[in-house]
């Protein structure tokens, strides 16, 4: 899990162009949206693409998005459960 979270940190920084953010700045348990990284709705769409492209994982029910993208940890758990 730790390895996957570290990989996700790098992928998110690159994919979302978080120029001023270092991997160690991202707390795996902290909310991804609303505070901290300052992600927006386009970033959410980009995260959906990232899951499909890099992990072959699709979100079947859009309503689950809020729960899946709550934090890096919840993202990693979703990937592990669905790969």
């Amino acid at each position, binding site marked *: 899990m730790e390895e996957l979270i570290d990989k996700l940190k790098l992928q998110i920084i690159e994919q*979302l*162009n*978080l*120029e*001023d953010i270092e991997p160690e700045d991202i707390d795996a348990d902290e909310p991804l949206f609303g505070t901290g990284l*300052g992600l927006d709705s*386009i*970033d959410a*769409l*980009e995260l959906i*693409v990232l899951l*499909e*492209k890099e992990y072959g994982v699709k979100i079947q029910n859009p309503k689950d998005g809020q729960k899946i993208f709550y934090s890096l940890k919840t993202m990693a758990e979703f990937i592990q459960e669905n790969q």
Partner: protein
Amino acid sequence: MINNSLKISKYCHISSDRVLVNGKPFIENINGLDNKSFLKHIYKSIEIAYSKFFKMDEISKLGFLAVEILLKDINLSVYNSEDVSIVLSNSDSTIDTDYNHQNTINDYENFFPSPSIFVYTLPNIMIGEISIRNGIKGENSFFIVEKFNAEIVVDHINSLFLTGKAEVGIGGWVNFHQEKYEAFIYLASKNGNINHSASEVNKLFNLIT
């Protein structure tokens, strides 16, 4: 149509080798940086902190930086946000971003359209970024023309001014295609020493070439 009531108080040029403010050198690309690196260098040089900048496409970054430099030390808050207009133009629209987006959907087996690239496939998105950053809510237009046409920009801003729809106009040209890019942005209002006419705007535009 020439309306001598509007004046130009400040203007800014950005090209691949330098940034000029009122025709004077402001930042030089002494290390021959490529476009991405030079725009980042300008961003760092003017000491702003706006993380959204890094999410923009290259043409939006270019226009954003030109307006940042233009409005430095200018207090736009003395105007109603609805009275500040933006009229920009270019010849290549967002062609580089269009290609970037196309590259995400070319391969049927690797078909992952990027939302963050797609949202920048219109040049007036750049105006949106500038407006959000500066709290501008006035009229705006983006013209795509073969080459810089001062009359279109000047007449449009003057028209907004004459019909009471704007007190200030940010006008100019922001073009970006591959490694060739140029921005020329000026501020027109009741203050300034240069007439807001097509001939004067053409003279200022040509300072970069």
